[in-house]
């Protein structure tokens, strides 16, 4: 499906939903058999959040990011984080303009709607925190001058869980800035066979036209934000959060900001499912992705398992 000629601001919510569901279908064709993950990633974007992709090399982290960027019709830049990367390398810097005799701000790669921060844990903490600050404030301050970032602004960071040497793991306070943490995992064997024998997904991606544009995405994000949430659902969220706070292994439990993130992600998920408001099904769908990295002191994998068990025993009706 291609972008429709009507201006995004005048489209109805139903149209927007149809549009983004079409985008999901397209992404499904490229990113084989990982519809759940793609849905969550798109939900994260619709909730105006940033994503942290964590999985082993070759599982398609970069492909996922580029697919999303391409189909959303957003400008896409990729920064490979290394141990010698400096903040200025991402943000941009004041450069002396010999012609005019003045300093001129040269924007870094961060000035893009869609930024892929590859292997973010390889950069030194200084660079990491600079990026994370930008992610939160959506503006860059260099030498006292503030430069606003374009809207929408999505950062997709990747991490390689296997690598331990020469990495700087992100502290919990920084992890909090990512709305969702996603693991890609492996596709179905059948779909994987298609992948092995079929067309290179990158080429297929290049052939596919974008489904939306930045304006449409902003409108959809506004529609998601405007979604009302029922008391019944908030009760369910409260029950979940209370249980994370009461479980000793998950102490100190989810923060109020995490709760807000959970509801925001659930909203976006509901939007993608064509619902008028989030249901417990949406909360359940996004819960582990929202909560695991915020609680994962003892190791994200075991935390995710524990959160899944918690979902199963918390009354969802």
């Amino acid at each position, binding site marked *: 499906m291609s972008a429709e000629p009507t201006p995004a601001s005048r489209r109805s919510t139903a149209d927007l939903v149809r549009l983004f569901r079409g985008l999901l279908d397209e992404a499904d064709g490229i990113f084989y058999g990982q519809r*759940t993950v793609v849905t*969550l990633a798109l939900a994260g974007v619709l909730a105006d959040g940033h994503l942290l992709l964590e999985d082993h090399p070759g599982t398609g982290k970069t492909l996922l990011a580029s697919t999303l960027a391409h189909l959303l019709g957003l400008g896409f830049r990729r920064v490979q984080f290394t141990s010698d990367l400096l903040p200025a390398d991402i943000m941009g810097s004041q450069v002396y303009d010999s012609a005019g005799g003045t300093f001129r701000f040269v924007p870094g790669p961060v000035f893009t709607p869609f930024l892929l921060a590859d292997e973010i844990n390889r950069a030194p903490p200084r660079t990491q925190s600079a990026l994370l600050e930008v992610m939160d404030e959506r503006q860059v301050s260099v030498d006292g001058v503030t430069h606003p970032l374009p809207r929408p602004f999505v950062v997709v960071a990747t991490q390689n869980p296997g690598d331990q040497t020469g990495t700087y793991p992100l502290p919990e306070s920084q992890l909090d800035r990512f709305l969702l943490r996603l693991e890609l995992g492996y596709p179905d064997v059948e779909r994987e066979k298609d992948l092995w024998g079929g067309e290179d997904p990158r080429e297929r991606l290049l052939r596919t036209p974008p489904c939306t544009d930045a304006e449409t995405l902003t409108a959809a994000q506004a529609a998601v934000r405007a979604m*009302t*949430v*029922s*008391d*019944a*659902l908030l*009760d369910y969220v409260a*029950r979940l959060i209370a*249980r994370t706070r009461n479980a000793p292994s998950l102490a100190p439990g989810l923060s109020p900001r995490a709760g807000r993130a959970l509801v925001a992600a659930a909203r976006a998920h509901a939007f993608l499912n064509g*619902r*008028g*408001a*989030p*249901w*417990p*099904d949406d909360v*359940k*769908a*996004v*819960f*582990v*992705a929202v909560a695991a990295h915020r609680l994962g002191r003892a190791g994200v994998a075991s935390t995710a398992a524990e959160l*899944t068990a918690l*979902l*199963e*025993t*918390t*009354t*969802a*009706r």
Partner: protein
Amino acid sequence: MIPEPGPASPEVGSGALPRRPRKAPRDGRPLERRRFLLSAAILVLAALPVAVDDFVPWITPLAGLLVLVALVRGPRGRRPPLALLLALSAAAFAGTFLHYGTINGLRAGGSLLLCLVGLKLLETRHERDLNTVLLLTVFLLATDLFFGQQLTAVAYVAAVFILFLATWMGSGTTSGPPRGEGPLGSARSGLRPALGLLAWALPWALALFVFIPRVHGPLWGWGRRHAWVSGLSPNLRLGGIGRLTVSRRTVMTVRFAHLRPPTDQRYFRVYVFDRFDGEGWRPSRRTLEPAPPVAEDGAKGMRVAYRVVLRPDGRSALAVLGRPLTVPEGAWLTRAGTLRARRPLRRSFHYSLVALRGPRPAPRLSARARARDLELPPGVDRRARRLAQRWRRRNPRPSALVERVLRYFHDEPFYYTLHPPPLHGRNAVDMFLFRTRRGFCTDYATAFAVLLRAAGVPTRVVSGYLGGRYDPLNGRVVFNGADAHAWDEVWIRGAWRRVDPTAAIARSRISLRALSLLTGGYTVGGFDVRESRWLTHVGDFWRRIGAVWNRDVLGYGPRLQRAFLRRLGWRIQGWRSWLPLLIGVLVVPPLVLWGLVLLENKRRRGARGERDWERLLRRLGALYPPAIAPGETALEFAGRIAQSHPALGRRLLTLARRRGRVLYEPGSGPLELRRYRKTLRALRARLARISLSPPEAGPTRRRPGP
């Protein structure tokens, strides 16, 4: 809102049968001993006023014995054999009938009810028996009010009722298991809801009391025969007044207009007897002939004006002090100077009289009349007759003879007692005068009359009320059953003169012990038997409250009501003016309550729909296990069912979607709610038709998760 059954609710998880729990198995449970004892204790408390007030020497102890046996045995063990229970019931009926001559009526009914209490407790074993016990308690509490409406009695009934209500509400008889610990646990936990319930009920009860048209006298005294106060009998048997005289029931009140005669002068005549058959007296027809009132001019005597309120006893005899100068409306005067109502009294009767006290002039006593007033059954009481004739010879003047007889009663060891040895046979008077010498007013009046008649002095016996107790707060003299009395009238010097032989007995020979216990210190047969004066002085304040209660609550009759309503600005003129009040108290409060209930229902409807949903889930879980897990959402559950049962799963998915929209999407309208309910109903109906058998292939359980 969703009620949360808890993280691991066993109800949902265990796949319980989706059938609604029935009442029957619950009620068939054996009764817990503590619960039994508490309920039994409250029942006994409720029965106590009836037992005390309606004490019958052998029925009441029998009931008490049954209760005692039941309490000791407790709710365990075998029920007493049916034959025994039937025999006991028959005995209770027979005893009541023998004692009262009927099994109808308030007092007979009260006795029967007491036996019923004992019998019921004896066979109480299960929860459902408790319902009968509770019902009986309420019935007895209402019955208590028939026996006494004094403030203390009402306070007692109210206290027991609150205790009962608290126990009932706390016991879980209404719903759920018993709550609370300890012997009074259930009562304690139920006290607050019980008081809340009363707080809702009281204002309405008060409005009904104030605004519903009142009738004269108590409602149960209105047109029903068995509720009347027992009064004097139109026949006088030896030993006959005894049972009446221990009653403290008020029979009449008298308000004297000016001067109140002293206690020992307040002889209210009710019946005059002139025919003696050896064992008892009855009036001859002559005494009952109508007669004109006393001509006012030229009549001698002290004038007395008073107003009488007589409690109904189903008879027409009225009480009168002195010789009436006027005849009140609805009454007539007999030749013997007694007053009769034109109709038997079925409600309180009021009448005002002006009368003359003093001897009753009867200058001309015809030979026939004289003969009748001297008549004695032939051949009986020979010894008494010989004695009388001997006295006559020594005291020719009638007044001297009277003195002689009275001196005889005073000097010889005659005792006054309410429990005399029985007198019977043809020579009862001889037996009394020379053998037993124990009796009360009837016996003394009879003996006196026989002696005087034997001596040739016309004498008749009069029964009525003497004395009474002055109630300073109301300004009335109150007569109760204990004031019933019998005395004589002797024809001396052209007038009937009153002689009270009972008063001649030496005070020291009055047996009071049992009497004062029973009467609590009132006058009996003209004697003041009050032993402890302090009783009457204690609690002046309390008595004043009691007086207000008597006057403004118990005495809230048609007149007071009209006055009160007038003060509220409502003038009663004809039945139409009642209508707004009746609508106000009978129609408006139920409507308001109804509205409140509707509002509450609306508020709870969500919860009720939720209950239906839970039932559906339970039913589904039973039909297609495993049941829904706590963390499973409706959609997930529906999806799981759809895997094994596609058709049903589709319906369930529709239902789950509608439910989700209603529950989670604040913008969904009433239409969506109706649709959801309709789908829910339809699905429940469909499932109800499916028999409870396992599905052909158990659906696999999908693990919920991201």
